[in-house]
């Protein structure tokens, strides 16, 4: 099966089958949208919570507020029905906890922003493996909708 690597800020999709993978999710959040009837799967690799004016040319997938709508559009373009989309997410860790002792870490802000924007668009989150202080690798099997999350020295998690 074809495997595509989704880098920071990117959005990629498959219909019917294929594997969407992100390697090295630290504070970033990997998000998947899936329509299990149309077998359309989209993955985004969100870098920061909110888009900003001084980065107007950024790809929409870089920020949660622009990334979630762009992912939905991509799913619909490939034949998914908006009302059938379900989301899963992984990442949002804080690898350097002592640097963020007095403020909300970027990882946490990313988790909150992704959750908020999914909710705003009426998409349920049916699986997640987020936060903590370690990096993750996320693989999304579009034929089944299964997402696996692996981390160094940890058991693989299926979400």
């Amino acid at each position, binding site marked *: 099966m074809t495997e595509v690597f989704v880098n920071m800020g990117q959005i990629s999709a498959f219909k019917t089958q294929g594997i969407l993978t992100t390697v090295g999710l*630290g504070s970033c959040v990997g998000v998947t949208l899936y329509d299990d009837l149309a077998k359309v799967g989209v993955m985004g690799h969100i870098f920061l919570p909110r888009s900003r004016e001084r980065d107007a040319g950024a790809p929409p997938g870089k920020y949660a507020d622009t990334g979630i709508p762009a992912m939905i559009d991509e799913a619909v373009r490939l034949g998914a029905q908006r009302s059938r989309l379900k989301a899963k997410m992984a990442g949002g860790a804080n*690898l350097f906890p002592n640097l963020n002792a007095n403020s909300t870490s*970027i990882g946490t802000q990313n988790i909150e922003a992704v959750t908020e924007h999914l909710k705003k668009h009426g998409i349920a989150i049916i699986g997640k493996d987020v936060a903590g202080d370690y*990096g993750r690798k996320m693989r999304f099997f579009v034929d089944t909708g299964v997402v696996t999350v692996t981390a160094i020295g940890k058991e693989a998690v299926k979400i």
Partner: protein
Amino acid sequence: MNDAKLDFLKELANIGTGHATTALSQMLSGRLFQLVVPDAQMLPFDQAADYVGGLEQVIVGIFVVVSGDVRGHMAFLLPVDSALVLVRLLTEDDSGEINELARSALQELGNIMITSYLNALAKMTTLLMAPSVPGVAVDMAGAVWQSILAGAEVTDEVTVIRTEFFADGEAIEGHILFLPDDDDFKQIARMLGLEEV
């Protein structure tokens, strides 16, 4: 980026890393370090992720936030094998794992190296550059690097100044990276009379 600016960035990296490795050498009873010619680049965001190779390899990343007249971020990245050699030399712990003692030894080592690097630049420019307490992560290179870029809130491009070094006679190698905020970087250039770089 023009050659003058690139040369200037490399010169900064040379001076900073020279001081950092001298500090490291003193901690390691005089072992000598070789510096590889520094690399200074303005990376577009879409190429930044791949700047450190081997995204799934386990590395040790030591990360500090720089504040003061010049703000930015600094990181000291090294393969886990190199980190274990440093830990053994510093603590005589040869358990071969990054335990709590190893972590705090690496944190201290990162602190001393990064402080030396910044002090050298501060002396040259008379600008204040103060490092935070370092954070230490042992994880996939991709996750460590991505967290550093997010910490620096990188927009469309990021200036990365990197110096690679290795030790004589010991399997130690690593990179020191400086990610200055762009506006503040211009300030350094001005201080050094490189207005138009």
